[in-house]
């Protein structure tokens, strides 16, 4: 196939990717967007096979079968709660692939010094560094979300200095390469330093902030892919990679804005670290925790006029979304007005709760975003907090010493009564105490969210 035909067909792929991104930003077309993107990808792979440069096929097909098979099985088997770490994993392997391509290109083109043009060696160095950071960083994010390593920030004195030195070493190797010192060991040093930086960079970031980090690393992988496009003089790589780089960057900003934090604060704030401030936040005015039985709570719910459910990660872990909906249906039959208040960062990813509740066929109009939900808490009888913690922590509003001070929260403490379903008194994912639990208006219903909701359903039915 001639280069002209190839590039024209690649242009079709580019158009499908643009349409995919546009449709993925619209709720009713999102699924089609994903399919259009997949079709475009298939076309790009087919076109690449038909290129004259490709002379051997079987090892490509074998590699695709292994990688694709793993991807398909892992993506099918994973539970909805584990989706975030899956995205991290697939992002990481993409970044790794970009870094490896650059390594192979360097190895192939550089044996004789002076062979590489400056722009090509610049692209090789950028793609290798960014891809390597994305790979290693994503793997740490995966390990944190999968709880293979602790989710809390891991910090030590002088951390930023060490990180800066490691990054500087990676850049120095890269600059040496771009300047014409085309030694293979420089590439190894570059890849190793960049990977080390990826690990060190993500370690001090708390588990609750992982979605923002994954989004950022996703944009990184896009940039790495665009850089490989310059190495291989390939338009589809340049445009698609850069589209992801740009939209991923914007998405990262939107996500951190939803938490009312700057991106710098997310990346370098070691959010959720146990500090003296957090200890100050734990001062709960000597209040006590009141726990209630399921029967008591069932009565409160059944005789309320308005009930608002606030779902959080606990709901996802317990897979209680169907039970919550069943309970809501029962209450509605009794004439109770039920709605759901969704905090933008409830769960482990923005939109996490919407996906889970949609799975349980909760009617869309009952889902209220934070700005619509907050004015209504004043006239709400009972708020049912199902496994949410930090997003309802009044310290974000009142306690300047709290690490989450300034984050917009759901003002559930303005309701008449707050019922908190929680496994234990352990602090949430961010590791911060929550004075809401000590509020005289609050009662706790301890236990797994699914078990508690099931009991509530039984007790409401029995009334």
């Amino acid at each position, binding site marked *: 196939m001639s280069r002209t035909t190839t590039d024209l067909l690649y242009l079709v792929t580019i158009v499908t990717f643009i349409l995919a991104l546009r449709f993925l930003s619209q709720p009713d077309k999102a699924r089609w967007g994903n399919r259009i993107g997949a079709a475009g990808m298939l076309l790009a792979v087919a076109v690449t096979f038909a290129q004259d440069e490709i002379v051997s096929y079987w090892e490509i097909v074998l590699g695709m079968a292994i*990688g694709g098979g793993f991807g*398909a099985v892992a993506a099918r088997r994973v539970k909805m709660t584990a989706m975030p770490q899956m995205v991290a994993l697939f992002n990481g392997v*993409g970044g790794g692939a970009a870094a490896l391509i650059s390594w192979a290109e360097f190895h192939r083109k550089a044996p004789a010094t002076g062979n590489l043009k400056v722009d090509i060696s610049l692209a090789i160095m950028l793609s290798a560094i960014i891809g390597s950071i994305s790979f290693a960083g994503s793997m740490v994010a995966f390990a944190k979300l999968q709880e293979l390593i602790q989710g809390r920030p891991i910090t030590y004195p002088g951390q930023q200095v060490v990180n800066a030195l490691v990054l500087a070493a990676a850049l120095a190797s890269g600059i040496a390469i771009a300047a014409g010192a085309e030694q293979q060991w420089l590439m190894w040093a570059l890849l190793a330093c960049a990977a080390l930086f990826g690990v060190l960079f993500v370690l001090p970031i708390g588990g609750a902030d992982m979605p923002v980090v*994954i989004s950022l690393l*996703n944009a990184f992988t896009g940039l790495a892919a665009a850089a490989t496009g310059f190495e291989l003089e390939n338009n589809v790589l*340049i445009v698609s990679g850069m589209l992801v780089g740009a939209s991923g960057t914007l*998405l990262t900003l939107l996500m951190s804005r939803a938490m009312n934090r700057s991106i710098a604060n997310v990346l370098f704030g070691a959010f959720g670290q146990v500090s003296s401030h957090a200890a100050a936040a734990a001062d709960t005015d000597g209040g006590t925790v009141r726990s209630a039985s399921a029967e008591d709570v069932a009565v409160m719910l059944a005789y309320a006029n308005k009930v608002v459910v606030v779902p959080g990660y606990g709901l996802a872990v317990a897979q209680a979304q169907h039970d919550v909906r069943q309970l809501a249906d029962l209450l509605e039959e009794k004439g109770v007005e039920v709605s759901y208040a969704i905090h933008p960062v409830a769960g482990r990813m923005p939109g996490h709760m919407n996906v889970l509740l949609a799975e349980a066929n909760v*009617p869309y*109009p009952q889902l209220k975003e934070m700005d619509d939900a907050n004015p209504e808490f004043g006239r709400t009888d009972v708020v049912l907090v199902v496994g949410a913690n930090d997003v309802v922590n009044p310290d974000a509003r009142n306690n300047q010493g709290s690490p989450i001070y300034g984050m917009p929260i759901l003002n559930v403490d303005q309701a008449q009564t707050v019922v908190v379903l929680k496994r234990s008194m352990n602090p949430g994912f961010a590791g911060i105490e929550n004075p809401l639990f000590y509020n005289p208006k609050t009662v706790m219903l301890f236990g797994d969210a699914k078990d508690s909701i099931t009991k509530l359903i039984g007790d409401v039915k029995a009334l």
Partner: protein
Amino acid sequence: MSHGLLLVFELTILVLAIFLGFEVISKVPTLLHTPLMSGTNAIHGIVIVGAMLVMGAGGKDTLTWVIGFVAVILASANVVGGFVVTDRMLEMFKKRERPRQNAAQDSPDADVGDRSNE
């Protein structure tokens, strides 16, 4: 085409892609943040094209073969896993009828019949 001219063309489309990338998703609602991230994650799987070009080229030495082979595996996992995970996320929305804003607010019972085929 000279190398310099090609580079200028490449830089031109790169800059246009930056603006397009910002523009095309600028109105995304919060509930689609996660699927959109996952979808863009699948799209950067386009590095598979680069991996194929490295792997398919003739006259490779062993090191290039190994690196290219691993790159093909990683990139295919990115592509297939990325699209499948995104599809599974979006599958959750499929049965829902078109959103009707605030219908539940005044008449909580009105949309009971709205729930689709169960």
